[in-house]
């Protein structure tokens, strides 16, 4: 049983290596290689889940410098890992199948599948990691694979720029993450999760250091899960092919941040103000992203902002001491968001790369299967009762309610907005008449459902997003204790142990949630049904609160200015003054001494004589 986690981890790596080294010439081979890898990983995960909830752990040495430093590559499988493994390999497999069709005629196909396998390897690495450094290693590897996948069509200038932006923003997050690791290691002398948990006393002794380390580690999550300050890269990441957006920017990679926060919750729990900061950022992201999403016209951007908003929910849940509900929401969200993205991909594929929702319309009739699955996904996302989203979002709202009104009401408002913008999308894209480019005449051939390899994954995901919320399904996977924690608050008792106490059940919260759903859906329905053009224009939201422009001016601008100042400084001050200065000095003295060559003999004789006189005078004094 020990070898299963290693098999899961290493098979995608093997396929990525084979593709990079020699399979990249033949496209079919590389596709089948990466598909086989992801299916073996899925199989191994299912076998692992079937084998019952015991935790496994095994590690090999990476760097071992005497007693001082012991870094290992180790795998740890417990309830939390099982959830993520299922999500990653499940959705990974579906996306692989889906992209065999979606990327059929792309000439960089082998490179695409190579980087997809590389991504699977690094994502599984994060999920299975057992120490801070190992999770950091795969953190950056995931960053690189998202760079490769976003920049897949690198000939497009915008795709290359988006890939760079994604990698750099992640890198800023990783900077915080690494400083957090260093702080934790400096205080506790250990890097493994269990080892750090054991000597938590050393950290809790110094609360200021603990908060600083916690916030630094949270920095990593902010970077990866695109929370407010570092969220700018996710919407641009839509430049990548749609399966990539579905897999990476909806279900798995962005969830890595939330998973890391849940995994390290024992570190965050003891410092209340770290938790409030996390909750605050979560709430702000949720609200901001929801507002922005209401005004976007590109179908993938709307889903991107919706992902941002849901991630805000999960981080807020962690902040409100409910890691269980955050993970539960992550679990359900992965399914219906992947479904929505793949649905959007089917629409784009059907309409020959048309992404603007106002140029769609009446797809209900022309793409029935896609419409059905998309509708289910939307309902699940917006929290329609008895669907997956409802249960997990309700748990988070409960935790937020428990935390305080300042956190509960913004989340409730973003729940309303979620319903609003999703219904807007569905109404505009799928209902109403087909879009006439010239307003009359025969509409261009208006979309068609994709082949089986596209629609089957959609159906599977639709089923999953319906049943994911129920206990009978979640429990065997979660293991009883994790499902129980999904609805409870975690508090860090004085004795240094994490306890899960049931959140006080307030009947008001579910009702408010349903009210939010109804309000949002009806509002959007009335506002948008039958409109050819967007009736309400709010430039502030449409331009994403001008954050991008602010960043471009502030950070990029100041960096360019700083760079050119230092370049000028280097060229003229150090190079000029120091180097040319000394060279000039020597040249100057040379020039001055040259004047001694008078040219006439008398001058020389005089200098001899004067020299002798001075010498005599000095000697005789």
């Amino acid at each position, binding site marked *: 049983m020990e070898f299963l986690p290693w098999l899961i981890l290493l098979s995608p790596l093997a396929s990525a290596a084979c593709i990079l080294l020699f399979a990249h010439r033949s496209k079919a081979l590389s596709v089948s290689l990466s598909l086989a890898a992801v299916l073996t990983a899925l199989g191994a995960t299912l076998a692992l889940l079937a084998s019952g909830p015991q935790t496994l752990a095994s590690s090999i040495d990476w760097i071992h410098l005497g007693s001082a430093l012991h870094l290992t590559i180790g795998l740890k499988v417990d309830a939390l890992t099982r959830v993520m493994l299922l999500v990653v390999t499940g959705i990974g497999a579906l996306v692989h199948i889906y992209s065999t069709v979606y990327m059929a005629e792309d000439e960089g196909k082998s490179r695409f599948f190579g980087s997809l396998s590389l991504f699977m390897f690094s994502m599984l690495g994060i999920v299975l990691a057992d120490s801070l450094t190992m999770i950091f290693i795969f953190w950056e590897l995931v960053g690189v694979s998202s760079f490769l996948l976003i920049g897949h069509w690198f000939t497009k200038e915008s795709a290359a720029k988006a890939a760079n932006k994604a990698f750099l923003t992640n890198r800023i997050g990783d900077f915080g993450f690494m400083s957090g690791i260093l702080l934790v290691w400096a205080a506790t002398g250990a890097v493994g999760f269990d080892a750090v948990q054991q000597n938590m006393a050393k950290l809790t002794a110094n609360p200021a250091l603990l908060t600083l380390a916690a916030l630094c580690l949270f920095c990593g999550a902010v970077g990866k899960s695109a929370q407010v300050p570092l969220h700018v890269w996710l919407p641009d990441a839509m430049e990548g092919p749609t399966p990539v957006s579905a897999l990476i920017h909806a279900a798995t990679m962005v969830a890595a941040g939330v998973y890391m926060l849940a995994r390290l919750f024992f570190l965050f729990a003891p410092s209340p103000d770290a938790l409030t900061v996390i909750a605050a950022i979560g709430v702000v992201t949720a609200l901001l992203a929801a507002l922005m999403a209401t005004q976007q016209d590109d179908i993938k951007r709307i889903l991107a902002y919706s992902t941002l908003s849901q991630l805000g929910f999960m981080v807020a849940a962690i902040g409100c001491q409910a890691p269980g509900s955050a993970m539960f929401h992550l679990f359900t969200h992965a399914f219906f968001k992947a479904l929505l993205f793949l649905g959007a991909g089917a629409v784009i594929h059907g309409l020959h790369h048309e992404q603007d929702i106002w140029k769609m319309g009446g797809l209900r009739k022309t793409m029935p299967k896609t419409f059905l699955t998309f509708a289910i996904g939307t309902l699940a996302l917006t929290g329609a009762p008895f669907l997956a989203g409802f249960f997990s979002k309700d748990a988070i709202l409960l935790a937020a309610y428990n935390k305080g009104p300042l956190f509960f009401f913004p989340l409730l408002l973003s729940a309303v907005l979620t319903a609003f913008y999703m219904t807007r999308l569905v109404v505009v894209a799928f209902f109403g008449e087909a879009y006439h480019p010239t307003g009359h005449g025969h509409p261009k051939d208006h979309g068609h459902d994709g082949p089986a390899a596209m629609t089957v994954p959609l159906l599977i995901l639709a089923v999953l997003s319906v049943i994911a919320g129920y206990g009978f399904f979640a429990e065997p996977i979660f293991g009883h204790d994790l499902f129980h924690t999904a609805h409870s608050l975690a508090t860090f008792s004085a004795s240094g142990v994490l306890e899960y106490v049931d959140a006080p059940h307030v009947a008001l919260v579910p009702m408010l949630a349903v009210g939010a759903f109804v309000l949002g859906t009806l509002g959007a329905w009335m506002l948008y049904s039958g409109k050819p053009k967007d009736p309400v224009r709010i430039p502030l939201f449409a331009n994403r609160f001008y954050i991008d422009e602010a960043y471009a001016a502030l950070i990029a601008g100041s960096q360019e200015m700083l760079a050119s100042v230092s370049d000028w400084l280097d060229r003229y001050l150090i190079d000029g003054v120091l180097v040319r200065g000394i060279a000039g000095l020597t040249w100057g003295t040379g020039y001055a001494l040259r004047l001694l060559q008078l040219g006439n003999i*008398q*001058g020389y*004789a*005089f200098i001899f*004589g*004067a020299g002798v*006189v001075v010498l*005599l*005078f000095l000697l*005789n004094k």
Partner: protein
Amino acid sequence: MSPVLFWAFTLLMLAFGASVVLNRNPVASALSLVGSFLCLAALFVGLDAFFIAVIQVLVYAGAVMVLFLFIIMLLDLKAEQRRRFNPVALVGGAAVSGAFVAFLLHVLKSFPAGSQAFPNLGVERLDDVRLVGFALFNHFNLPFQTVGVLVLVASIGVVVLSRRELK
């Protein structure tokens, strides 16, 4: 040697020296140089250095001055016409030589041995040439040989320098 003779010859020597320096016509200055060499030789005789006196007359007055005159004739130098002289060089040169003289006086004043008279010789007839030859070929044999080589090199140098390029 009586002081009168010494002063006579010294003043004569200095007069000839001054005329070498001040004279416009190179031949005149060459001849006055010869004059000063001869007075010097006389002084040497006064100092019982007969061999050196003879050499002085023979080599300097005889060979060197002849060479000078020969060159002056060869180059057919006219007396210098008045060129504008630049005052700085004049003042500079005078200052340095004045400094030498002042320094000389200063030193001689405080030079104890200077004021003693010459001790007279232990032997009345001084076969000067044998003694100089003895010193030269015993203690200073190596320098003597090198000087020989030096003279050889000088003569070769002269031949090379004055060879006219065969156009």
